[in-house]
């Protein structure tokens, strides 16, 4: 069966360091992968999308990589700030190209300590 795993339920880092979150998947070759941020009591908010033919994508302090050989995406937040504390979700389409359904990982709770 399809599986999407995010490396840990919780990650604690010091302000100013780089946070690295991992998303692994099995038994599928998605055309793209998305990352979302979720704050307590709120719905997920889209951050970045990376396609299978893109190795890396950046947006301000965020960087996403996508290794289709390893079946893994890494999500980096550089110069982290306490305001970056949230749960981060990866999501991908595992429906074989229909491209309108996402399956989400369980998320990683990131806490950035001042």
């Amino acid at each position, binding site marked *: 069966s399809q599986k999407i795993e995010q490396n840990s339920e919780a990650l604690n880092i010091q302000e100013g360091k780089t946070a690295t979150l991992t998303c692994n998947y099995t038994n599928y070759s998605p*055309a*793209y992968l*998305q990352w*979302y941020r979720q704050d307590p*009591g*709120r*719905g*997920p*908010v*889209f951050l970045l*999308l990376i*396609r299978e033919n893109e190795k890396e994508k950046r947006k301000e302090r965020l960087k996403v990589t996508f290794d289709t050989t390893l079946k893994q995406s890494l999500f980096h937040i550089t110069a982290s700030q306490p305001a970056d504390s949230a749960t981060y*979700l990866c999501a991908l389409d595992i429906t074989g190209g229909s*491209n*309108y*359904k*996402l*399956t*989400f*990982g*369980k*998320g990683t709770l990131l806490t950035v300590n001042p």
Partner: protein
Amino acid sequence: NAGVTQTPKFRVLKTGQSMTLLCAQDMNHEYMYWYRQDPGMGLRLIHYSVGEGTTAKGEVPDGYNVSRLKKQNFLLGLESAAPSQTSVYFCASRAPDGGSNQPQHFGDGTRLSIL
């Protein structure tokens, strides 16, 4: 700019009661989704719709029904509420790809407790 609006935000029901959760989007999106989010389980797709008048089952559809009579609204119904349906329910919408992959836009959820 409302985006995706869910009502109600909170609700407590007794076992066996029925209710309808409303999702409204003002972005003219074709695709709409209902998820539930439980601790340790992540977001799971209940039902979805790819256009007005269409609905389809997701990963966990049992005990729920949906309707998409108008493009902007997607209703989720609980026919006979059970404690196992205690959860946070999220609605999302998305534009068709049109050549580029589109993200989903989420509401802020409905927190439902079944006693």
